[in-house]
């Protein structure tokens, strides 16, 4: 057991340690300072910009930035939707997998464009290698979209008054070439040498030692698995995601995959400190996030180690809650991963969340409901930014001063946007869950929307069944992508419902912070005085934490009480 904790501590520690220099590199990249990597990347980027006809030095205001971002994303959605609809006839399909149904293609295309990777199919039978490669493209560019949006907000937070916030395409392309691609190559090669396949051959038919005849799915998985973690995407090459022994062959690869999903979200926070030359603010933000993370991790790991009390009652020896877990990872690591993947919006799993203990399920849900501790590539910071704005506003009211953040007055318009974004998340989750629960409770005949009655989509009865629906909606709105996978979700009802939640849950929380930042950047800069509320102090950190806790607790407690808490107390 002791060695299992060593793995967790080493991975987490190394992610923090390496995030500091990497954050510095990201900050230098976005502020246009010279870095050691310039001679290598500059010619490569020059080619990309000149072939695409983009001038990366053209200054854009926040509206132009958002237009560029949304334009690209719509284009990718359309392209991906078409390919998934026709993949059965396209090349690179050795297993002869069929094209997707329109509703599944709609859900899958959105899901990968918005960096969620909610998968209502299994990779082995639901995608051709052509489809997998195109989704891998989206795993890069969706992560880069988030990082670029964060870079825009960083730029707006500088101490000056400006209309323009740099060039979106410049941030975006450099996120691809400098942040994502180099690490992706290294990790993909590491995985390939540890047993993850990287081949374009189809399924292999074998006769087992005992004499059974089975097939083994393969494919270009190493390249896919690497970016799925780095880009906090989380979509698995195979159905079982990183629980699959080819996708995550051993304990060491598991640590590397865990590290890969932590590194960029961690680095982005430190990058903010280096970018603004205010390291303290980065430490305060990172501290708040880490405390929130640990508060979710500890109960989860403890309840997973203790195992299922119902099985203890049967008299067997508990080695952790092993249902849905792999022996090579063990209960502590799987518990830790389940919170890392839900706090960060990765959503890859190395064990099945549906079979975890009720306390763990509650913590996984809470992690996605807050959605601001570390968070996904770039967007984690954007979500946290909203809470900062709200905390500044509330603290300003408490001490009776005009609220200011980094020398800019926060006024009605910014607070309205922030409040709207903060309320949107519970609104999407709870209305989606209410709709699904209504149908399931009255067991409606669903017609076009589902082949059969609504309760048929549940894999477990009672409170746990409710948790399955709550989890699916939460995971969609938080753009997470993990699931209580017992839910039968490949049908028009879930494909279309979650598709809409995914779209709204992605772009509105990007548009909001960029708009706030753009509006603030235009305002007059007020130098710090003795009357300024300092935002890089522990007290302010506690204030932000309180705002997050109150909003999450008030909005979500009733839903959690009906699901995992009811299961725990029964």
């Amino acid at each position: 057991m002791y060695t299992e904790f060593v793995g967790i501590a080493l991975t987490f520690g190394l992610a923090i340690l390496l995030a500091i220099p990497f954050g510095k590199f990201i900050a230098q990249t976005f502020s246009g300072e010279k870095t050691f990597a310039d001679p290598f990347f500059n010619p490569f980027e020059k080619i990309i910009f000149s072939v695409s006809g983009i001038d990366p030095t053209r200054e854009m205001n926040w509206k132009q930035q958002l237009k560029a971002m949304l334009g690209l994303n719509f284009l990718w959605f359309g392209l991906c939707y078409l390919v998934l609809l026709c993949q059965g006839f396209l090349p690179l399909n050795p297993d002869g997998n069929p094209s997707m149904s329109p509703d599944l293609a709609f859900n899958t295309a959105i899901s990968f464009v918005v960096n969620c990777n909610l998968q209502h199919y299994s990779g082995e039978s639901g995608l051709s290698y052509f489809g997998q490669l195109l989704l891998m493209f989206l795993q890069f560019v969706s992560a880069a979209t988030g990082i670029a949006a964060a870079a825009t907000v960083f730029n707006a937070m500088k101490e000056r008054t400006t209309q323009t916030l740099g060039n979106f395409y410049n941030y975006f392309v450099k996120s691809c070439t400098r942040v994502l691609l180099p690490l992706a190559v290294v990790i993909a090669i590491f995985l390939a040498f540890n047993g993850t396949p990287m081949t374009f051959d189809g399924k292999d038919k074998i006769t087992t030692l005992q004499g059974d005849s089975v097939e083994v799915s393969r494919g270009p998985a190493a390249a896919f698995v690497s970016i799925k973690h780095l880009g906090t995407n989380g979509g698995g090459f195979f159905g079982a995601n990183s629980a699959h022994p080819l996708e995550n062959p051993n304990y060491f690869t598991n640590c590397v995959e865990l590290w890969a999903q932590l590194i960029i979200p961690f680095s982005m926070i430190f990058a903010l400190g280096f970018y603004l030359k205010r390291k303290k603010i980065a430490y305060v933000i990172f501290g708040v996030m880490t405390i929130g993370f640990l508060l979710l991790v500890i109960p989860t790991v403890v309840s997973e180690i203790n195992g299922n009390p119902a099985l203890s009652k049967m008299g067997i020896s508990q080695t952790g809650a092993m249902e849905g877990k792999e022996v090579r990872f063990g209960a502590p690591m799987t518990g830790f991963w389940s919170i890392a993947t839900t706090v960060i919006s990765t959503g890859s799993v190395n064990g099945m969340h549906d079979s975890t203990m009720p306390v763990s399920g509650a913590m996984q849900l809470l992690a996605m409901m807050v959605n601001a501790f570390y968070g996904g590539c770039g967007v984690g910071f954007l979500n946290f930014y909203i809470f900062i704005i709200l905390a500044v506003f509330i603290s300003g009211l408490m001490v009776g001063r005009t609220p200011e953040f980094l020398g800019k007055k926060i006024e009605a318009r910014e607070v309205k946007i922030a409040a709207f974004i903060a309320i949107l998340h519970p609104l999407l989750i709870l209305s989606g869950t209410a709709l699904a629960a209504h149908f399931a409770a009255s067991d409606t005949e669903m017609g076009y929307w589902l082949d059969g009655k609504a309760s048929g989509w549940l894999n477990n009865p009672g409170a746990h069944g409710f948790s399955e629906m709550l989890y699916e909606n939460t995971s969609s709105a938080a753009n997470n992508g993990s699931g209580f996978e017992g839910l039968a979700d490949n049908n028009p009802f879930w494909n279309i419902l979650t598709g809409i939640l995914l779209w709204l849950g992605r772009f509105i929380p990007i548009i909001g912070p960029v708009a706030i930042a753009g509006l603030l950047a235009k305002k007059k800069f007020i130098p710090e005085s003795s009357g300024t509320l300092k935002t890089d102090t522990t007290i302010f950190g506690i204030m932000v934490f309180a705002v997050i806790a109150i909003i999450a607790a008030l909005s979500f407690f009733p839903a959690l009480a009906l699901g995992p808490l009811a299961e725990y107390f029964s």
Partner: protein
Amino acid sequence: MLRLTLVLIVIFCIYYPLMVFGVAQAAPNNGKGEILTIDGKTVGYKRIGQKFDKPGFFWGRPSAVDYNAAGSAGSNKGPSNPDYLIQVQKRIDAFLVAHPYLKKSDVPADIVTASGSGLDPHISPQAALIQVKRVAKERNLDESKVRSLVEKHIEKPTVAGTETVNVLELNLELQQLKHSNISK
């Protein structure tokens, strides 16, 4: 925008995977997955568990996909699901019938619960050791010989990790032992 998208598709869908593919040619079995063979014939993939429920073999964990790696999945049963609990009780009973020399408290959770992928190649060392007596008897082998084989296959972490036994590799070596015939 279209041109930028096309350039990036060339980089990420062609250049990047081909580069990894090229390097992976130097990986075990050219990146097609590590295989195990007897006399040149493939009997399995090292990382992919196989179904073992016949006499003379060490048994692996229950699987939601019956160890057919054409797919992969866990059971996704919730911890309080009554049908699930009945199913586990049945597995415990069946295991005790096959191993009448065991007490209930000897049986570790992993051998009666399904894995996340349905393809878990491993069991815990405890789950392997409790099967030694049965396997030795069914193969007419010395218990001590089988036990030392299991001990040889226990993978212990040096710094970080879990203790595991790869059931397929264990059974493969068992199969190749001299005089290792399954008595009917």
